[in-house]
C-alpha cells in the first residue's frame, strides 16, 4: 500500500480549503473567486490522478464557464453588502451534514486504498476489455474518447440532450422576463 503522493494530498487540501472559503465567505464575489480557485485545484488533482481529459474539461467548464456564469449572474443581480467577512454557522445544516458524513466515514476503511492495483475497478474485466479492444475496435488511441463516443455513446447522447435541455431551459426562464 503506497501512500497517496504528497503533491496530490497538498492539492486536495488546498481545494478543500478553497471550498470552505467559498461557502463561508459572505461576499458572493469573494465566494466565486474562492470557487474558481477550488475548481483550478481540482483540475490539477485530476491530472495527478492520470485523468487529463477530465482535467481539461474541469478547467474549461468548471473553472471557466461556470465561473463566468456566476459572474454574469451577480453582474445582473446585486451583491449583498457585507459588514461581516464570514457567514454564521447554521447548526441545523451541520446536523444534516453530520449524518451524511458519519455514514460515509464508516465506509472509508472498506474502500480500497487509493491507487491499489487490486481494487475491483482496476481488475474489472470491463477495464481490461476497454484497454485491450478500444483501439482495435474503434481506431481511437485515447480510450476515454473511444468509450465516450462508442461504447457509452448512449450516455453521450444523453449528455448532449442535457445541454440542449439546459439551453432551452435558460431560454424559457429568461424569455419571460424579456432578457433575451
Amino acid at each position, binding site marked *: 500500500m503506497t*501512500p*497517496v503522493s504528497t503533491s*496530490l494530498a497538498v492539492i*486536495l487540501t488546498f481545494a*478543500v480549503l478553497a*471550498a*470552505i472559503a*467559498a*461557502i463561508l465567505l459572505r461576499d458572493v464575489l469573494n465566494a*466565486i473567486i474562492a*470557487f474558481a480557485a477550488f475548481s483550478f485545484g481540482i483540475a490539477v488533482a485530476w491530472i495527478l490522478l*492520470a*485523468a*487529463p*481529459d*477530465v482535467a481539461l*474539461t474541469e478547467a474549461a*467548464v*468548471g473553472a471557466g*464557464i*461556470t465561473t463566468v*456564469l*456566476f459572474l454574469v449572474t*451577480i453582474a*445582473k*443581480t*446585486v451583491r449583498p453588502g457585507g459588514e461581516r467577512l464570514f457567514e454564521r454557522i*447554521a447548526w*441545523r445544516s451541520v446536523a*444534516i*451534514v453530520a449524518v451524511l458524513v458519519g455514514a*460515509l*466515514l464508516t465506509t*472509508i*476503511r472498506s*474502500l480500497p486504498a487509493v*491507487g*491499489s492495483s487490486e481494487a475491483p*475497478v*482496476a481488475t474489472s474485466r470491463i*477495464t481490461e476489455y*476497454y*484497454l*485491450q479492444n*478500444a483501439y482495435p475496435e474503434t481506431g481511437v*488511441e*485515447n*480510450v*476515454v474518447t473511444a*468509450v*465516450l463516443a462508442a461504447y*457509452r455513446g448512449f*450516455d453521450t447522447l*444523453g449528455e448532449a440532450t442535457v445541454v440542449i435541455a*439546459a439551453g432551452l*431551459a*435558460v431560454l424559457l*426562464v429568461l424569455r419571460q*422576463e424579456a*432578457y433575451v
Partner: protein
Amino acid sequence: MIDLLATHYNYLMFVALVAIGLYGVTASPNLVKKVIGLNIFQVGIFLFFVTSGYVDGAVPPVVHGDVAGTYASPLPHVLILTAIVVGVSLTAVALALIVRIYDAYGTLDEEAIREVQTE
C-alpha cells in the same frame, strides 16, 4: 489510523467536499452560494469516481497499439466527463432562475424572499 489517512486520503477529502457542499446548499442564505455549494457537492462525488479509477504509477489511458504498462481505468473518466457537463448545465439553469427570481423579488436572500412571499 495514520496508515488509513495516508492510503485513503482522497476519500477523506471526498467526504469533506461532499459535506462542505451539502452544508453550502442547505445553510447559505444567498441563492448563488447555494449553487456554489451544489457544485462543490458534485465535485466531491467526481473525486470519488476519478480516484476509483487511479492505479499507482498509472498513465492516462491512451493506448498506442500495445497495452503493456499501467493505465488508469478509463470508465470513471468517461462517467465524470458526462457528469461535469450535466453539472454545468444544471448550474446554468439554476443561475437563470436566480436572475428571474432576483428580478421579481429584488433580493437573493432566502429569508428576505420568504418574507416577501408571505406578505
